């Protein structure tokens, strides 16, 4: 066909210029694709961290007021005083306490009766971060308008200090986190997003059973499998299932039925006795993202003094290289891609207009032969489009290469996810325990290119080429044949 032949020959004649234009467009488009891929990877990583923090399907959490962190010292006997940092003001009935004398001896006391700690284990199951509140709050929250589901959880820490039988040895500390969760399936909660690796999940029949589900990482570290036994507050729990949680989440080590956790936990906001029908964390899912703000306000009104944290506010607390990478991709990356694209468009336009200027005599001849202006413009636009398609294809290729390079050279992303302070465990720290604080998680970063981004790249490249062709066409439209032919003469 004449038109295709003419187009092909013209591009071949101006091959160098066509390559420069195509490469310029490819560079701009490739950068857009690479930045989009990196951005998508970072967004996916962020989403996995946030969903891991809450669990799948959770839009907000409700927690009780924090324990006020203070230190109080109570003399117990001459030369011996017990100092506690945290919400405990004084010892309570039915609560084990540990006395450590300046000489290094330790005693375990309960109901005013103390025994030597040698050869014994001081085991506590406490709610160290937030004060518990009535589980009736869960029912009240679940009844609110636009709440799809609510689940109460008792988030606890089990710390066991085992003292050596003979003097001279060091006490051994073992801590692990325990979540008391509702038995049976719930659409929200810490187990909502878990994947069962072996065994089974809780059923309604397990509500009062001494059964536990263990996180896969904890199971690996402690050689636990289905059928193993773990001790919580000196009670033997049988492992019935092992689960794994999404990457980036900070799951508890062990899950037990909520009623068992309430029976075994030793700390209340009233500072005495065991936890009754109470929880210290409520997971809430709304019917839609648009309802989150309204539900948040309703819960705050319903439970004044309790903290309602939505995913958006929690996202702001996630720090680390993940959030830095997100800012980089969103701000610098996006603007850099836009600038390069504008430069590519400008260069393409300039080169195309120069080429059209050089062909003025040819276009004048075609007009003399009877070619309408629109036919000549179509010819030029066709040439520009061909260059644009080449630029688009090269740009997508460059984008894939760029994304692969980013995936290869980018350092692992980490996110520091918030967790509560450990105030009341100061004793544990003094006994040689490990402080808990913000947890750092390594998040997999995988730039990925979607079909939408490829389509965008193609459209951008062709738009740039057509823009260049359009500007050149404006020049052709203004061309007077007689003036153009005078150029030849």
């Amino acid at each position, binding site marked *: 066909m*004449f038109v295709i032949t*003419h187009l092909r020959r013209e591009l071949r004649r101006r091959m160098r210029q066509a390559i420069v234009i195509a490469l310029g467009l490819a560079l701009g488009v490739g950068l857009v694709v690479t930045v989009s891929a990196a951005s998508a990877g970072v967004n996916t990583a962020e989403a996995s961290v946030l969903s891991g923090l809450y669990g799948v399907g959770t839009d907000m959490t409700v927690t009780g007021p924090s324990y006020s962190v203070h230190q109080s010292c109570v003399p117990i006997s001459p030369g011996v005083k017990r100092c506690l940092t945290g919400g405990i003001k004084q010892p309570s009935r039915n609560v084990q306490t540990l006395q450590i004398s300046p000489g290094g001896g330790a005693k375990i006391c309960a109901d005013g009766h103390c025994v030597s700690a040698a050869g014994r284990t001081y085991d506590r199951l406490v709610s160290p971060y937030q004060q518990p509140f009535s589980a009736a709050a869960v029912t009240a929250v679940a009844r609110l308008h636009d709440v799809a589901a609510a689940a109460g959880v008792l988030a606890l820490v089990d710390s066991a200090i085992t003292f050596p039988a003979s003097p001279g040895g060091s006490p051994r500390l073992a801590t692990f986190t325990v979540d008391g969760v509702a038995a049976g399936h719930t659409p929200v909660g810490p187990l909502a997003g878990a994947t069962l690796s072996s065994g089974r999940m809780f059923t309604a029949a397990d509500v009062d059973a001494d059964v536990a589900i263990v996180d896969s990482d904890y199971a690996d570290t402690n050689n636990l499998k289905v059928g193993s036994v773990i001790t919580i507050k000196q009670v033997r729990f049988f492992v019935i299932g092992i689960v794994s949680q999404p990457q980036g989440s900070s799951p508890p080590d062990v899950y037990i039925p909520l009623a068992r956790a309430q029976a075994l936990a030793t700390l209340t906001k009233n500072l005495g006795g065991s936890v009754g029908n109470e929880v210290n964390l409520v997971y809430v899912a709304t019917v839609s993202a648009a309802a989150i703000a309204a539900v948040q306000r309703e819960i705050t009104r319903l439970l004044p003094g309790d903290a309602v944290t939505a995913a958006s506010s929690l996202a702001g607390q996630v720090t680390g290289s993940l959030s830095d990478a997100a800012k980089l991709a969103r701000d610098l990356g996006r603007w850099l891609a836009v600038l390069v694209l504008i430069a590519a468009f400008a260069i393409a336009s300039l080169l195309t207009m120069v080429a059209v200027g050089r062909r003025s005599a*040819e276009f004048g001849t075609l*007009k*003399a032969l009877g070619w309408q*202006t629109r036919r000549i413009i179509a010819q030029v636009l066709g040439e520009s489009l061909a260059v644009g398609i080449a630029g688009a294809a090269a740009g997508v290729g460059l984008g894939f290469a760029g994304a692969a390079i980013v995936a290869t050279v980018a350092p692992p992303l980490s996110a520091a996810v918030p967790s509560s302070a450990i105030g009341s465990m100061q004793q544990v720290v003094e006994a040689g325990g490990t402080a808990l604080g913000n947890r750092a998680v390594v998040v997999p970063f995988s730039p990925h290119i979607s079909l939408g981004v490829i389509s965008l790249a193609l459209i951008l490249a062709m738009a740039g080429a057509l823009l260049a062709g359009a500007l050149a066409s404006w020049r052709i439209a203004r061309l007077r*044949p*007689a003036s153009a032919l005078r150029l030849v003469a």
Partner: protein
Amino acid sequence: MYTLTGVTKLYQKGRRTVPAVTGLDLTIEDGEWLAVQGRTGHGKSTLLNLLGGLDRPTQGTIEFGSADFGALRETQLTRLRAESIGFIFQTFNLIPTLTAAENVEAALIPLGAGQSDRRTRVTAALRAVGLADRANHLPTELSGGQQQRTAIARALVKDPSVVLADEPTGNLDEDTRDDVIGLLEHLWRERGLTLVLVTHDAAVARWAQRTAVMTNGHLTIRQRSPNC
């Protein structure tokens, strides 16, 4: 064929106004061969551009058959050129990326002729100018004379009623000049074309039926050539 009445063409050069053609009255009959002589810069090419609708007069009227150029829109003038007017240029003005056949074919594209029809007419046009064996050669592979023959074929392939030739032998040596002019004359007689040929070469002008001289934008008709 043509009736020009009081045609004037002025160009703006900065603040100066340059008259290229002034108060020109001219009638060109159907089938006539008119040669327009004159020195460079005296308005010969401007006259040709006006006759071809490539430029519009500042004043006056140009009638081509029953069409008044002044009343036609640009697209209508372009269409008229496509159908009825063939051009031959001094520098041949062939498209460098197209073969001889494709250059000739370019004149048929605006007419919407089918591919098969175009091929037939192109072959016939090249044969008429003696270039049937050079159809697939690019302009750079043709001599000056061959390029001008290709341009002649391009001008004639659409069976125009008038051919406007601007110094068609200006870039050719004497022998080639005579060949090309001889070919033009042959085709003029054979097809009954109206031919307006601009030249500064008196030897070429002598081939025409009638000659005119452009001097500073004014046209003076001479007597008819004794050769016709």
